[in-house]
């Protein structure tokens, strides 16, 4: 069973953190939405592509010890809600640091990693994860 189109469809957004900006109220959203929840009909057709910088701070975090199949090789690993500097929040894995090093308020930036694969013979999918921003 291949899920190729389902993942392929979101590639561009997941590769580059592309969301939308509401042309009516300037709010930014990630992932993309067709309608701005605040502006409703006024926003129709005005939700323009918006690329996030990938920089942000940890809003909340956890260390996953019991993982889904795709992530078993990586456990324990850190997951966080990240507040992007432009305003939206995004959920992502934090890699390249000790999982228990992650703390609320820590500065992070996006990186490009493998997210998973469709079984042993299916496609591989890629997208954003985050790394600690080191001074």
């Amino acid at each position: 069973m291949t899920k190729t189109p389902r993942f392929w469809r979101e590639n561009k957004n997941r590769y580059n953190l592309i969301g939308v900006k509401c042309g009516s109220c300037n709010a930014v959203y990630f992932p993309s939405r067709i309608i701005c929840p605040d502006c409703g009909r006024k926003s129709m057709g005005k939700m323009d592509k918006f690329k996030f910088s990938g920089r942000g701070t940890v809003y909340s975090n956890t260390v996953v010890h019991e993982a889904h199949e795709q992530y078993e090789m990586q456990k324990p690993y850190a997951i966080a809600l990240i507040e992007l500097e432009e305003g939206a929040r995004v959920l992502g894995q934090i890699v390249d640091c000790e999982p228990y090093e992650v703390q609320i308020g820590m500065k992070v930036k996006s990186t490009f990693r493998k997210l998973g694969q469709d079984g042993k013979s299916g496609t591989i999918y890629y997208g954003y994860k985050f790394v600690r921003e080191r001074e």
Partner: protein
Amino acid sequence: MKKVAIIGVGITPFGELWDDSFREIGIKAGFEALHDANISSDDIDAIYVGNMSAGRFIDQEHIGALIADYAGLAHNNIPSTRVEAGGASGALAVRQAYFSIASGMNEIVVVGGAEKMTDIGDVEVNDIQSSAADQEWETVFGATYPSLFALMARRHMHEYGTTREQLSSVAAKNHRHGSLNPKAQFRREIKPEAISRSPVVSDPLRMLDCAPISDGAAAVIMCDMGIAKKYSEHPVEVIASAQASDTLALNQRKSITEMLATKIAGKKAMEMAGIGPADIDLAEVHDNFTISEIMAVEDLGFFPKGEGAKATLDGKTTIGGDIPINTSGGLKARGDPIGATGVAQIVEIVEQLRGKADKRQIKDAKIGLAHSVGGTGSSAIVHILGVGQ
């Protein structure tokens, strides 16, 4: 709008029911409820079944027809509808039945809730549970269902100073209550220290912070209050039913230390019932994780925001406390067969209001609240039941 009554309840034991298939547990709960209500299958106008994911747990969809068939009701060609809202599927089935009776379309309705989770392995179960969260923007990125609640717990600890000891007090209390419930999956007490020491699932949440994987079914018979006395001397009245939605993914919410859907559904239900939190004698809340119960007792207005954890540790939510929460043992100890859970909560409230809750009976219980959540708070459903007039 017609008043709606509950005239019968049934529930299977919750747990690992190796010998029973999905259809068997569904039917057992239903027949117990029919028997309790003293009605025959000929009296039934419709069936609503709450079920989250039979398609993935047992490869079976079309649950409405399946249950009607095995209940022997296919002969009568009774309409049967399966309802899904993640963890709130059972509660949503109750609400659909409520609508159909209140509108006058149906007089007597059977509501069932069932899930068979142990036919497959744990890892797959975790995968299915997380499908109530956002598959495209949460789980694909490595989030598990418990990890999303762990994010809420971490933030709650950060904002309100909620402690490990307080989280453990929720599970310890629910296990104590569960030990008094013969249908509960876990009928033994667990010391708070053991909960705090159990293996980490998703920090800060540990194994004993999480509701278990369970099989089970529950059913209630609902009817027009006008005819309820024909079947039951003490019908329980559904005095309010409310529902609210929120974003599917956690990252879209302004606050993750409250469930806004719970707050709104709770407020609407209390307005509809014309009561406040202080008027409620007991509540069954959605404690799929310890942090969920803490947020629920705050969001439903039993305690101010940030004080739910302390109140639990102080014993205010135990049987005999100010507002007993989850006298059945809750999802934590009674068990959480997803689709059955929302219906099982109604069963517990009905038994309490009938004064039939045995060792866990709350004295003079007149008004009870049931609160059910789908996903990470994307759906919330609140029912308020009262002793019928």
